């Protein structure tokens, strides 16, 4: 029931967005602690022992002090990080020019970090982003440790705008549990390459609960077995995240924002410059099956590897969130007080602060044509409240040679919007001030404060609108024995029954031809039977 506890505690964490980053909630932390040796396969192969550097032999009081020390040797590191999404929370679509990224979009979970920075930035690879005045050029505010700590003791809690904890504090509040400040000197002297727990500290716990956001990323990937992930299997290949998400100049490859939906050609060779090494094809090529399985290799012209090889996502009892209904937030219990409720598996199901959730495990993906280009509904965009708002409109079509059929997680929800201006609203949720939704349960005040921080007009009228977020599923690759079998798609009501624009034997047939064809065969049969019958009758007569 470890995962249950993780969820329970995660649910208590009050910040929404990415909070838990910080913060493996207590059991998760002990989980990480128990692996005191980092999760990399072998001892660091580095030629430098950072504990021998005099620059690091000092009693650091703050994160930025550590960064200053790092930059003495790693002179370009901060500049590199400052070019990445981990720092900017912004991504520009090279094709459409649209500015996306956490800073600009309104997602389907905690919606927007704007006006909630103090909490959300617990997952920012930086220090001090607490409002729109944050200076993105100050190098010492780059957080090296969150990605490079190998001691699993570095924690950033919501409320500190990305700073690690410097003083012993009760967390979650009123929980009776206390978090001690990390030993920054020890952490700095033991830095190393990012391990699964570094990446996971944010990416496993997005949306404020273990597994909630992605479904194909959760804390089970810290110690996965082969069934869960054939590449990360702790007893097998034991890949780190960075084995696939190969990194250069701190730029981590394989972003959903610039997704490689249809990687072609053979496997890549070392030294070959390439923009998408995180794709399956980077190692496997686009004809990955043995020669005698030509038909399977041919499928790569239309189907992403993930479609067959990730038959279900959230393949554990942690599960993932399938919907978040914000319209239920601020509902109080019978005693007039806020309350929380769990589902039968111990996952958050309702919280007066946040609304209602639906979870599931072993989820069958929804399939879509994807070309890797998504158009997002960003802050301030007009919406049509008569329709389900697409948080991101995925591009792709059957006739596009750069599109493939992909498995996706579709997360559905309800969010507030301005009924006069027809925009999704930005709301001030996290915080202890009077306007914070999670403090005083007043939507009107929360939206007013959020829209002001986002510099957007607000009419004063709001309602809730249905929303959908569509994300490709790409992690938790199953062993080949668990891949989809042919008939799971090639059948009348198979996985791809709603996919248009492609002829699939066994799923599709021309009814007219079938009727005519069987009629022809049947009439031939009847014809010869009659002929035979007459022959028999006449021969008897003759006989």
């Amino acid at each position, binding site marked *: 029931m470890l995962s249950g506890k993780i969820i329970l505690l995660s649910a208590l964490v009050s910040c929404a967005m990415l909070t838990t980053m910080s913060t493996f909630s207590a059991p998760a932390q002990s989980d990480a602690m128990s692996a005191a040796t980092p999760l990399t396969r072998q001892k660091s192969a580095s030629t430098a022992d950072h504990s021998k550097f005099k620059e690091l032999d000092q009693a650091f009081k703050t994160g930025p002090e550590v960064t200053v020390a790092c930059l003495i040797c790693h002179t370009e590191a901060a500049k590199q990080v400052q070019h990445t999404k981990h720092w900017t929370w912004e991504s520009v679509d090279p094709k459409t020019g649209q500015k996306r990224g956490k800073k600009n979009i309104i997602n389907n979970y905690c919606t927007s970090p704007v006006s909630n920075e103090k909490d959300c930035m617990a997952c920012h690879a930086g220090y001090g982003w607490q409002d729109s005045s944050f200076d993105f050029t100050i190098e010492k505010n780059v957080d090296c440790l969150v990605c490079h700590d190998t001691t699993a003791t570095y924690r950033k809690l919501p409320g500190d705008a990305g700073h690690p904890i410097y003083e012993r504090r009760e967390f979650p509040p009123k929980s009776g549990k206390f978090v001690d400040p990390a030993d920054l000197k020890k952490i700095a002297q033991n830095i190393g390459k990012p391990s699964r727990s570094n990446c996971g500290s944010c990416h496993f716990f997005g949306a404020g609960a273990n597994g909630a956001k992605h479904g194909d990323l959760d804390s089970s990937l810290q110690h996965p077995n082969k069934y869960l992930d054939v590449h990360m299997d702790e007893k097998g290949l034991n890949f780190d995240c960075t084995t696939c998400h190969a990194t250069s100049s701190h730029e981590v490859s394989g972003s959903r924002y610039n997704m490689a939906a249809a990687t072609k050609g053979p496997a890549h060779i070392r030294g070959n410059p390439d923009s998408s090494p995180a794709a399956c094809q980077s190692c496997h090529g686009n004809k990955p099956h043995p020669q005698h399985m030509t038909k399977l290799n041919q499928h790569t012209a239309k189907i992403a590897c993930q479609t067959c090889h990730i038959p279900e996502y959230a393949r554990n009892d942690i599960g993932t969130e399938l919907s978040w209904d914000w319209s239920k937030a601020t509902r109080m219990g019978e005693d007039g007080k806020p309350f929380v409720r769990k589902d039968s598996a111990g996952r958050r199901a309702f919280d007066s602060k946040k609304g209602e959730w639906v979870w599931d495990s072993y989820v069958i993906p929804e399939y879509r044509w994807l070309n890797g280009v998504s158009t997002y509904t960003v802050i301030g965009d007009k919406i049509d409240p008569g329709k389900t708002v697409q948080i991101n409109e995925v591009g792709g079509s059957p006739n596009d040679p750069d599109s493939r059929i992909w498995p996706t997680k579709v997360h559905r929800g309800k969010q507030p919007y301005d009924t006069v201006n027809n925009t999704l609203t930005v709301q001030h949720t996290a915080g202890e001030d009077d306007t914070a939704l999670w403090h005083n349960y007043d939507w009107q005040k929360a939206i007013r404060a959020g829209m002001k921080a986002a510099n957007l007009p607000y009419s004063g009228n709001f309602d809730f609108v249905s929303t959908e977020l569509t994300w490709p599923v790409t992690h938790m690759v199953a062993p080949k024995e668990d891949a989809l079998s*042919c008939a799971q798609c*090639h059948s*009348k009501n198979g996985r791809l029954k709603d996919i248009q624009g492609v*002829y699939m034997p066994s799923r599709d047939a021309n009814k007219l*031809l079938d009727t005519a064809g069987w009629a022809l*065969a049947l009439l*031939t049969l009847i014809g010869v039977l009659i002929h035979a019958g007459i022959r028999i009758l*006449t021969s008897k007569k003759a006989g």
Partner: protein
Amino acid sequence: MATNKIYVFKRFERFWHWSQAMLIIFMLITGFEVHGSYQLFGFGRAVELHTLSAWTLIGLWVFAIFWHFTTGEWKQYIPTTEKMMAMIQFYSVGIFKGAPHPFRPTTLKKHNPLQRLAYLGVLLLIGPLLWLTGWFYLFYAEWQAWGVGSFLSLEWVALFHTAGAFMMLSFLIAHVYLTTTGHTPTSHIKAMLTGWEEVD
């Protein structure tokens, strides 16, 4: 009635006929499963078996085509109107009255005019329809490279392939029945097995 025997079908021809017959029947069974008409082997297995049979059949054809041309046997399929009306008359009337078979096979003319026409139809229409569409089906992934991706659609290729299969099935039904219309009900089949046909 005196019975004569003539040697009609040589060893290779019989081998070719029966192995082709088995392959075609097996491909009908697996093919219609791939088409979604029923479940027998399971879709994936059916595709594998169908593909394997297709390659085997292609191999067989290479030999058969070589044989037909080197022996001149291809001439057996040249259509003729000679005795055609008599054959139609026989199948529709004479056979019920115990009339004698109007066609007497020889080594040089094995097939009656209706057989010639039917087999020519199989060779020139049903066969090519199946193997041409089957070939494109098999190499679906190469369409772009072949430059046919822009105007061929798998749906139409599958449609014609299926249409060919229905025609082949109907041919098979009629063909099997008509083997019983020889000198005796089994004389044609015996000939195809032993090479020797009983004639009047």
